[in-house]
């Protein structure tokens, strides 16, 4: 559905060198990205600020022309075939609106039907579905300028889907939203992804978006892909593991050991113990532990993806020339 081969985007910037002199320098925002995204995939595209996420998305949607490499979306070349491509893709730029600021939301949807030449029946069916899933009815007749950010974002999502796109690009769709709106947006996108006929590419700074939605995670930094795989692969590659914390009714016996797990900490007069699970199911550890001491409480802590990604970002910064 989406192919990128050694895709590049260079910007020339003028850097101050002395009082009046300016030197022209070339900066690569995207520096040779190769990715292949199949139909129905949900891909999270993450990276620190300025990593080249938005620039990539803009080249995929035909907004920016690439400086080098090849790119094709739905079998089309984004910039030369921009208007044809626009009919097959939906775009939500978190900070750019597709809606008419002064008109009621419903009116924007009606205008978009004409702009995308959608048959009335298809339009009505898609709008009905969005209205149900995103709870639009309460503010359908409110001018867009009076909507809250969360309401507007739900409107933007609908606007991007009314022409039945095959690929949906989302640039930071949850930025600035409160918890409830975030949940609404996420569960809607999850629903959309499960249907399997929309390919979804989303950039975000909120890793919870990725954990909830995307099987595949692409991490980009300094314009290059530094990880491409599942979240689990990311964890195993960077050595983040689950932890099991147990509160015991009796002190933990000396020299207690479970194969595959390491005792990371023993606290509270040996009444609390933390295991790091290397390569063993939590159940096996619990089974051995029950024999050693009565268990009062247990908690299993998933590895924190934020930590992994933060480590990844700093690693690639120090590794950069």
């Amino acid at each position, binding site marked *: 559905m989406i192919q990128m081969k050694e895709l590049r985007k260079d*910007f020339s910037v003028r850097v101050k060198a002395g009082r009046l002199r300016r030197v022209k320098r070339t900066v690569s925002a995207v520096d040779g990205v190769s990715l292949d995204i199949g139909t129905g995939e949900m891909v999270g595209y993450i990276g620190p600020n*300025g990593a080249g996420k*938005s*620039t990539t998305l*803009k080249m995929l*949607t*035909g*907004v*920016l*022309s690439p400086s080098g490499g090849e790119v094709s979306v739905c079998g089309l070349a984004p*910039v030369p075939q*921009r*208007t*044809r491509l*626009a*009919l097959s*893709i939906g*775009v939500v*730029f*978190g*900070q*750019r*609106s*597709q809606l*008419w*600021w*002064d*008109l009621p939301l419903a*009116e*924007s949807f009606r*205008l978009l039907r*004409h*702009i*995308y*030449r959608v048959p009335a029946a298809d339009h009505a069916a898609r709008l009905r579905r969005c209205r149900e899933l995103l709870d639009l009815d309460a503010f359908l007749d409110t*001018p867009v300028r009076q909507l809250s950010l969360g309401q507007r974002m739900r409107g933007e999502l609908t606007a991007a889907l009314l022409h039945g796109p095959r690929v949906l690009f989302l*640039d*930071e769709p949850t930025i600035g939203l409160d918890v409830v709106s975030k949940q609404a947006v996420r569960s809607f996108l999850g629903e959309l992804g499960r249907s399997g006929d929309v390919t979804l590419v989303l950039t975000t700074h909120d890793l919870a978006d990725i954990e909830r939605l995307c099987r595949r995670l692409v991490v980009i930094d300094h314009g290059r892909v530094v990880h491409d795989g599942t979240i689990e692969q990311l964890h195993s590659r960077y050595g983040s593991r689950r932890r099991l914390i147990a509160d015991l009714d009796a002190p933990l016996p000396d020299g207690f050991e479970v194969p595959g797990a390491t005792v990371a900490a023993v606290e509270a007069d040996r009444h609390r113990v933390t295991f790091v699970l290397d390569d063993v199911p939590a159940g096996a550890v619990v089974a051995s532990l029950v024999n050693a001491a009565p268990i009062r409480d247990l908690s299993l802590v998933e590895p924190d993806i934020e930590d992994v990604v933060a480590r990844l970002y700093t690693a690639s910064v120090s590794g950069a020339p």
Partner: protein
Amino acid sequence: MGDLRAYAALLGGQFRSVTSYRASFVVELFSSAGATALDVVTVVVLFGAAVEVGGFTLAEALMMTGIAASGFVLGDLAVGSVERIKLYVRTGMLDAVLVRPLGVLPQLVLMDFPLRKALRLVFGTSVIGVAIALNDVDWTPARVLLMVVAPIAAGVYFGAIFVISATLSFWWVESGEIGNGFTYGGRDFTSYPITVYSGWFRGLFAYGLGFGFVAYQPGLALLGRPDPLGLPGWAGYSSPLVALLAAGIAAVVWRVGVRHYRSTGS
């Protein structure tokens, strides 16, 4: 066909947007007509001080002023809102325009269609009416045709100037004043017989950039006066060609400009 309906929808959206602020729309409608009136008053005042300027009487000059004013209003009404592209480029809002299945220029033009300037058109054409009444025009079929075509050609010409100067913003974001020099400066230049200018300035604007063919030359042809500056009589009928040439250049510059768009970080 489908495209036309899409563009009509855009225009309808713009119409409903501006009329949602009803009072402010009415105020703008009239104040913008007033601005055009002032431009013509300037010409009249100038001739109030001198009976003849540059070898032309007020009545004769009004023919040129009328063509220039009508043409400018046509061009401004049709594509003048392309000026707003500076805002779109600076804020990155052009991204949202580029992901729609329609041409960029028609979208920009229709999304900001300056309905408030509509009354100016009435004013511009009535100056031509006054000029026709004051001058004793020897009407031939060719002159009738020229009378109809000249303001439209002037409109196309000014439209091209609007597009070219707006396109500058793809390279220099704050290019506003440079562009205005050619659009509003061009309108002021064409409002007078070009004989009032002299030297390299007249050469550059009248012939180099073609402003001399917008209102001055067709005006001469309509009045049946030979050009004091020596161009042959058919030059007055060449204004549509000059307009088409300008439109062609504008189309090329625009295409290059859009490819040059850099967007903004988000």
